[in-house]
């Protein structure tokens, strides 16, 4: 996980969620690019974030694009978070003995606008949470930081401030993640995306 670097936080609020990642792409300790977000949109209310080997991230993203398109053509409806999560776990475990070296996090709102946050390890083991989840190189310290700052039932603006603060604090002490951050705020009204300034090193 430390080879290419990166960190992602997901936080849940009142019928909304925010997902934030850093923008660094590096090879070991050398920074190659500073504009590489690791969050991808599946549909208006479903986002996936991935940390690990960049090649495997692209491969998984292309496979998931294909599978969700086939699903929406066959069923004439968008895929729901629970089904998408099962599909991803299946895909990851399918390569049990030559796994994709990627940790993933899924954040979505289902039809009733209830929160769905799930993080997975490289073999697809699920870990659902109702408040926040983090993956990446500074995930341990981010868990501690989020525990202090997260409050239940935050609205969009409070959630944005909290998640930005947590991301900045976490990235300050970690050299393999950083170079700016991007935050997507998703509620039933739509998606707002903002870039945040962090320590640029």
């Amino acid at each position: 996980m430390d080879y290419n670097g990166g960190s992602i936080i997901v936080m849940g609020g009142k019928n909304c969620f925010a997902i934030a990642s850093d923008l660094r792409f590096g090879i070991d300790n050398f920074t190659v690019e500073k504009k590489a977000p690791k969050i991808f949109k599946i549909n208006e209310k479903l986002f996936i974030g991935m940390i690990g080997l960049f090649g495997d991230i692209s491969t998984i993203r292309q496979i998931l694009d294909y599978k969700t398109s086939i699903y929406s053509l066959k069923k004439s409806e968008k895929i729901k978070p629970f089904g998408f999560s099962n599909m991803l776990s299946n895909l990851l475990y399918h390569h049990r003995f030559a796994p994709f070296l990627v940790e993933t996090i899924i954040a979505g709102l289902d039809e009733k606008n209830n929160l769905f946050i799930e993080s997975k390890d490289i073999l697809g083991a699920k870990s659902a949470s109702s408040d926040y989840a983090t993956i990446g190189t500074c995930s341990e310290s981010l868990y501690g930081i989020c525990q202090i700052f997260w409050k239940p039932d935050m609205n969009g603006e409070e959630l944005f401030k909290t998640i930005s603060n947590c991301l900045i604090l976490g990235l300050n002490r970690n050299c393999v993640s950083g170079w700016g951050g991007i935050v997507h705020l998703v509620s039933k009204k739509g998606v707002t995306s903002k870039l945040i300034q962090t320590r640029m090193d």
Partner: protein
Amino acid sequence: MDTIISLNGKGFGISAIDTLSFKSFLITKNNLNKFIEIGKNKFLAVSGYPGDVIQFTDFLQKTIQLYTLKTGLSLSTRSVANCIRKELSDCLRKSPLNINLTLIGFDKIYGSSLYFIDYLGTLQRMNYCIQGHSSLILSSFLDRYYKKEMNLAETLNILKKCSDIIKTRFL
């Protein structure tokens, strides 16, 4: 390991690569051409083990030419980059190829684009990139002196300064 320096200029992309071919410590050829053209508006600068390079790039060049002949459509740079990435990614877990490439292409809609492709199947679109061991030395120089939308003379100047630095500081 070879060095590839690539820059995006105003409506064009430029790349410099060294022309040495070596076998452990012996230099066997010093005018080897390591650029491969794909279609009319794209080219690849490739570095890596010579056997793997020739095998992979031949396959790629001919596959894309076959696609163009079959369908009559020309592929955009982004499609070619993703095609190359997928091939490398598939090879990674079967028979890994130690090849690093930079793809530079020009499309009428997007202008010129530069893609960095790693031997692990990493794909990243960038404005300037350096591959090889001299990336550690030259990246900071390009961070300072690269500007967007440079003309040909300015980019040639930068490439000349880069080669001077390599001659001083690199084996």
